[in-house]
């Protein structure tokens, strides 16, 4: 599971208000490199919950990868930044698309219900008595 997926996934246990963001506990990660796409990052930035992403990168073992607050767009999308090792945009790309959580747990912030992640797949199935009707 990429941290981009974590950024839109929420719990839906009966009675929770938002079920978001899910706290992340990580036992194992992997890194898979993909090509950086500036236009994609530009489009998705306003839709990202930066705090949730920051918390997730820290939980995944990369506490210094992102700034706690979102850097200004002028910095992220500065001409040529994508080619510079360690630039804010490269870090954002790495955080969203290259870090994969292989084993761990997602915890609902409202109910405390935990959802296991096994072989990269979060199990969000609910028990019958947890389903809203």
């Amino acid at each position, binding site marked *: 599971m990429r941290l981009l997926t974590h950024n*839109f996934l929420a719990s*839906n246990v009966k009675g929770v208000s938002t079920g978001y963001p899910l706290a992340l506990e990580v036992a194992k990660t992997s890194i898979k490199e993909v090509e950086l796409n500036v236009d994609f990052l530009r489009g*998705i930035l306003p839709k990202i919950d930066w705090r949730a992403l920051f918390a997730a990168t820290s939980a995944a073992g990369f506490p210094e990868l992102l700034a706690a607050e979102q850097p200004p767009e002028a910095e992220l999308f500065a001409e040529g930044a994508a080619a510079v090792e360690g630039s804010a945009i490269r870090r954002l790309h790495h955080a969203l698309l290259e870090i994969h959580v292989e084993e761990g747990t997602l915890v609902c912030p409202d109910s405390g219900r935990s959802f296991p992640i096994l072989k990269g797949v979060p199990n969000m199935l609910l028990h019958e008595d947890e389903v809203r009707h």
Partner: protein
Amino acid sequence: MKLKQLEGLLGGLTQFSDPKVELEQYATGPHIASRMLYTAENSFDDIAGKVVADFGCGCGTLAVASALLDAEHVAGIDIDLQSLELAQENATDLELDIDLIQCDIKNLNLKGLLVDTVVMNPPFGTKRKGADMEFLSMGLKVASQAVYSLHKTSTREYIKKAALRNCNAISAEVLCEVILNSGFWAETMSFASHLLCCGSTSKRSSISQSICGALSHKLETKGKASSLA
């Protein structure tokens, strides 16, 4: 990628070995799957560089097709772990990277506007009544751009009406019709999703304009889409 190439690659995927009938597990054939995704990409720009979710991904045909057409991020969602494992295998064989989530679509809770496009071949509801509408309404809730979905032709008018009336779809258009091996007609319908929670108003109207643009464009290309099929 050319249509034929896409169809060829999808034809090589491993299908359900022990399909669970109660979940309506049957693979989406390479013919219809390739045309569905090819049209979504080439007529409407809804795949490449986008975040795409495949609802009821099964062995992953539509998710894999999206990744082959350069979706930036693909999430396949299914209730059944064995299907997800198969989808993973199929993606890995083609060196594609897709995310998978085990979840019952009716209990799915996705936040924000991150998912652009939802593609699906939902259960038709022959085993559990209403399953197709559950998928469709969730798709329209989640997608900020469009939903592409396969339905039985016999349910066409009902589905269109329900999408427009109950699920806030802006439009519901039939893109093409294909005869499935099993003998009934199915079709790809495209739904431009509602944009209720979209950022600023000006942005919202520009997006709906672009959707209207896509729709009128779609009407022109409709003949082409059906002839593809």
